[in-house]
């Protein structure tokens, strides 16, 4: 490390607050690789830090760590239950439902709730004039909190539900606001991504130098611009594909904070569920330098 710069005990005393989201438009570019290794490096150098796996559809961070499950929070939401004795089949609840979650054939006396499509907005209850709608709770997924020695929070969605957003929100909330919080984001630029990065002070986009990677990167960058979020880029698997991403990033004035070459050895560690930084001091130093520069620029969280 920097021989005359800040030594690590000083860093510990400063205890910066920062929420950094690790995201990518395209799946499989290395979000989890970056999040887990970065988290481990922060642990090694004594930073107070928390890792939040916000990819509720496919959470993978816990593959790389051994921790004790401290608590498990069940996440549910309310869906309507229709009392067919009171229901007059007027169809007003269906009219109020913006999610097509109520199915009704009035003359046959059939009314059904498609629970997985329900967003739990409560409009149908307001709509019903016969007092025929009550609510019950159904399960969306769980948030797992792991501790010792450090906190990892995992969001886990039940397959097939309409939206993981509520689970993600709970997971992010559970992380609090102390220390460095890494948000391993779901792929894409739709709702689950937005609800993850909206909490972040800075977003690190992970991409690869391929046409697919670049196309999805552009979409992420445009989305973050509308949200007024600062971002930087990590290029993974450098050496494959082409160089167009460099030109794009230069034009957009987005810094590249780290480059990881395509390397079968790195791939080997990752695919076995091992942390790359435990095997390569060089990459470990790169991670440390990267996060230090981000803390310096964007530290002391406002969220």
């Amino acid at each position, binding site marked *: 490390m920097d021989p005359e710069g800040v030594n690590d005990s000083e860093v510990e005393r400063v205890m910066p607050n920062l929420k950094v989201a690790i995201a990518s*438009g*395209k*799946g*499989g*570019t290395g979000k*989890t690789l970056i999040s887990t290794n970065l988290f481990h490096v922060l642990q090694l150098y004594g930073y107070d830090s928390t890792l939040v796996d916000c990819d509720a*559809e*496919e959470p*993978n961070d816990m*593959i790389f760590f051994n921790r004790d499950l401290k608590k498990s929070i069940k996440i549910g939401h309310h869906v309507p239950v229709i009392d067919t004795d009171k229901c007059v089949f007027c169809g007003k609840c269906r009219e*109020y439902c*913006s*999610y097509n979650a109520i199915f009704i054939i009035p003359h046959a006396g059939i009314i059904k709730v498609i629970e*997985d499509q329900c*967003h*739990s*907005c*409560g*409009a149908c209850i*307001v709509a019903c004039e016969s007092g025929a709608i009550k609510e019950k709770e159904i399960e969306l997924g769980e948030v797992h909190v792991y501790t010792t020695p450090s906190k990892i929070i995992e969001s886990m*969605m039940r*397959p*097939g*539900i*309409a*939206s*993981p957003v509520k689970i993600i929100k709970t997971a992010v909330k559970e992380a609090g606001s102390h220390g460095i919080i890494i948000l391993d984001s*779901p*792929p*894409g*630029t*739709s*709702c*689950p991504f*937005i*609800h993850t990065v*909206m909490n972040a002070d800075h977003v690190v986009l992970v991409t690869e130098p*391929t*046409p*697919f990677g670049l*196309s*999805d990167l552009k*979409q992420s960058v*445009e*989305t973050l611009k*509308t*949200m007024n979020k600062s971002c930087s880029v990590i290029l993974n698997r450098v050496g*494959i*594909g*082409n160089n167009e991403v460099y030109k794009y990033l230069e034009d957009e004035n987005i810094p590249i904070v780290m480059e990881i070459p395509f390397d*079968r050895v790195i*791939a*080997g560690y*990752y*695919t*076995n*569920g091992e942390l790359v930084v435990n095997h390569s001091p060089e990459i470990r130093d790169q991670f440390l330098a990267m996060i230090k520069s981000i803390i310096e620029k964007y530290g002391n969280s406002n969220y």
Partner: protein
Amino acid sequence: MEIAIISGKGGTGKSCVSAALATLSNKVVLADCDVDAANMYLIFHPLISEEKIYIGSRKAIIDYNKCSSCGLCMDYCRFDAISKISGEIVISELLCDGCELCSRICHEEAILMANNQNSRLYAGDFRNGKMVYGRLAPGEETSGKLINLVREKAKQAALSNGIETIIIDGPPGIGCPVISTISGIDHIIIVTEPSKSALDDLKRALQVVSVTGIASSVIINKYDLNIKMSRQIEEYCQNHDVQIVAHLPYDNRVVDAMVSCMSMTEYAPETDFSKSIQMVFNRILYGNKKRIYPTICW
């Protein structure tokens, strides 16, 4: 026949496999259902003959000329999207779920709903047939609605052009979009890779697939990057009665093909990768897949 390619984990090679399959015949409809990150058009540059606006979610907007700042809407909103900031009611566009309840209950009729008109459905010709794809606007809900439209359009294109094969490039994950992609199709191919994360995601994807009861098979992509993990995946599939139809080797040319706007079967047809894809194609399409049914003993 409708074949969908999904993966659970992102980046395992769904699109590369879909593109390779779609260029083995001159009569296919290719449907890109990964509407959150549609990429297939980058390879095929389809000649778009139809563009439709897809109205996704709607957002509540306040007419401040009418709003009395009573705060009733705040009480009803379950998405924490409405707040009072220095006496003024403010709706967060990001948090609004578009349920319209606030607009319905407002006594002053001060809340309007605005359509998000930035999502699109495209259809047109590409070199091996017809292509249909959707592009979801950023921040939209990851719903299956646009995917249903893409599939509907693909079926129409197949019917009106006498095409029998529809190849669907699916989205990652195990949520609503995946369910919409696979419901009612003829065959599901799950593309995985030899990593712990991918195996975990494969298990979750198989959970979703098994509920549908649709015939499915697995392709292990880049199997030689970690032979040990590939064996584990094989073992898992064997124990769960899931057929592995191909082992695709890691090949730099897969990315080179993409950079050259070609599929792997076009770019390097003589490679092991392409030959395996050809075999998968024949096996699934022409049904020379032998299934051994247990003999029933009375």
